[in-house]
């Protein structure tokens, strides 16, 4: 793989040729290691760059663009080559979209659902999550054959390796010791949405080797919060204006990729379960407002960020509900914020650029 990175579709088709199954996985949190262990390539569906046409007769315009574009992909037949779908329980819209796809559109492919217990967690939540993992393994086994705990253990170790590399990337970036642009940083991270570990790990290692600076480069930094690091042009604007993204609180990135390392001395299923309860706070899991605020303040302190940009997806209820109190809490602590209200594949308007420029001027 080193030196050659095929585009996403080519890669997935190559994997199929190798005899692996490919699953479409909707946002956001799921035990990918289990799919890897069963020889399944998880192809995450977050923001396919499609014109939204067919979905309009299935979903209302007030549903977020993550869900609408995911369904458009299915409706346009671009997911026909997939061997199944996995829907983690992230929000009301994804929950119902899953049921529309299974119960109303009837694709002739297996649909799996993964319920995630919501905070504030009770003791029962841990047992429950572990049971759900076992049940998912049992269901997958019926379609794909034997589930091997030992193989899962290996995938947990590979996952830990990925987490270590990503953690290092974030740490180097925060210190200003990473040469690459914000665009290249997030493009790299997002390759993890479809690459198998053996193909992702070399890319992460290569990026670290090629882009590590011996001395930090000084420039002011901001933290990104929201769902996705979109649009990439926004990152370009920041780069051009000499502002680094020093950390993020994105559902697609930091909130799940900065997972604590899993304990390899316990059973792999138990290790996967424990990880869920130690991920950074996230409104889709029901994390409390204060917990999120404390987390962001801590990030600001650790990274010396000058402000936070909330890159919001229109109609995303979990994100929008928390925003007023979080903004107020940050303001009380002297942390400036900027809120952008966007569709996931929206072009960056001149007006938006002006707002970003004004914000960066304010914090510099």
């Amino acid at each position, binding site marked *: 793989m080193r030196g050659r990175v095929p585009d996403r579709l080519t890669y997935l088709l190559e994997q199929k040729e190798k005899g692996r199954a490919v699953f479409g996985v909707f946002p956001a949190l799921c035990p990918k290691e289990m799919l890897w262990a069963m020889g399944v390539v998880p192809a995450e569906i977050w923001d396919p760059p499609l014109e939204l046409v067919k979905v309009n007769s299935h979903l209302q315009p007030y549903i977020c663009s993550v869900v609408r574009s995911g369904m458009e992909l299915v409706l346009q037949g671009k997911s026909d080559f997939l061997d199944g779908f996995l829907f983690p329980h992230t929000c009301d*819209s994804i929950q*119902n979209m899953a049921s*529309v796809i299974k119960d*109303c559109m009837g694709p002739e492919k297996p649909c799996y659902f993964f319920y995630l*217990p919501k905070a504030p967690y009770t003791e029962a939540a841990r047992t429950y999550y572990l049971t759900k993992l076992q049940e998912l393994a049992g269901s997958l086994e019926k379609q794909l054959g034997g589930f091997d705990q030992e193989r899962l253990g290996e995938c947990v170790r590979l996952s830990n390796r990925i987490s270590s590399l990503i953690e290092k990337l974030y740490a180097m970036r925060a210190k200003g010791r990473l040469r690459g642009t914000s665009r290249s940083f997030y493009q790299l991270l997002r390759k993890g949405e479809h690459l198998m570990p053996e193909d992702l790990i070399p890319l992460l290692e290569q990026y670290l080797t090629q882009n590590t600076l011996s001395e930090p480069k000084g420039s002011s930094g901001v933290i990104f919060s929201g769902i996705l690091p979109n649009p990439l042009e926004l990152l370009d604007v920041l780069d051009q204006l000499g502002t680094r993204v020093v950390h993020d609180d994105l559902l697609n990135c930091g909130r799940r990729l900065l997972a604590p390392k899993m304990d390899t001395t316990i059973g792999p299923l138990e290790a996967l379960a424990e990880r869920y309860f130690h991920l950074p706070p996230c409104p889709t899991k*029901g994390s409390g407002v204060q917990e999120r605020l404390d987390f962001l303040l801590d990030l600001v302190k650790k990274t010396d960020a000058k402000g936070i940009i909330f890159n919001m997806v229109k*109609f995303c209820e979990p994100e929008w*509900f928390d925003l*007023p109190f979080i903004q107020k809490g940050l303001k009380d602590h002297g942390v400036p914020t900027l809120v952008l209200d966007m569709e996931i594949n929206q072009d960056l308007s001149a007006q938006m650029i002006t707002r970003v420029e004004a914000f960066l001027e304010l914090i510099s």
Partner: protein
Amino acid sequence: MGVGQAIRYWFMKEVGAPALMRLQKGRKGRRRRPRPHLGPPLSSASRLREIMTRHYFLARYAKGARPVAWVSSGAPVELLRVFDFYTVYPENHGALCGAQKMGQEICQEAEKKGYHHDLCSYARIDLGHAFSGKTPVGRLPKPDLLFCSNNICQTILYWFKELSHYWNIPLILFDTPYNFQEIKGSDIQYMVEQLEAMVPRLEAISGRKYSDSRLKGVLTLAKETSELWGRILATLKARPAPMSIFDAFVHLAPVVSLRGLPVSRQYYQLLLQELQERVKKGISAIKHEKRRLMWDNIAVWFKLRDWSHLFAERGCNFVAATYTNAWAETIHYLDPSKPFESMARAYSFVILNNNLKHRLNLMREMIRDYQIDGLVIHSDRSCKPYSVGQYDMGRILAQDLGVKTVVIEADMTDSRMFSEEQVRTRLEAFFESLGH
């Protein structure tokens, strides 16, 4: 709990509320809008007004006298009754604000604090009320506890989290896994364990002891109330129907807000008796029932009165609704001999916690049982779990059963999200398709 507040609450309960009721009864009724196309109004309605007025009146004095909880419509309130919580339902309050056409004004109070106008309007009303105190019911008591279940939506959790943060009060969530397929033993076990774990927390918050026999008594009452509500809705199978769903939207309040209390059971006994009488005498909700309709989703509260006239004028009566049915559909699972397990089942199986296949089957059954000619689908921008999937379900039902369908884009309480002209045009086309 303070002695002074307890005495004041007791005084208002025993003296103030009855005096208010007498005053209301003595007052001449407000001038009614002419009802050229509607049948005689339900006489039970005045008793309902008394009950709900008393409920909100006493709520003003509950703080400090009794533990106060704000509860979501799908939460297992029966457990709170054991600890003598005075319960307030923000969703019921939101509906009331919508019906009184105060939705927009109170939503704006939340928007001033930064809440986006795309967020659920019940939540914005509730937060707007919390920030400004605005309400048509005088005053709501500040809660000691927030109690919700995500069986109706995940939004309720996001919303109650905000209140919990604002007031720094505890939030108890009853987490009900979505039934994408058949419910599993592990799901029930998870829910039972959560309910059991709530007991010591509720004891600590309320300062009252748990009683197994009290819970069983409350469950029996709730089950009987819900069954009565189911029998009430079933009277609408008669041709002509003795009541319309527009009435049912209003008469729903006790089974939602006062479930598990004797007053709700007594009220539904009265209402059922009246409806049975009306069926016997052939008294109809509308004067000329030519077409029978079903409603899907929450009511558009600020249009209730107008639309009851509009549809009646066209000879169309709403005789079924998935929304009103929700409080009759699953409470029969409650079993006082297995209190926790049966609560888990009853609250997990509610319509919005179930997959769309379940909802489609339910709607098919209702269309058949209530002899439905047309289906009005309210695509409610505030309620994603009710609305996502409606386009497909409407198409499937129209194809399979030949039922006429119309989708109207609206909101339950925020009238700014409603286009009168657009909806009117759609409804006119719908009436035409029904043969008017």
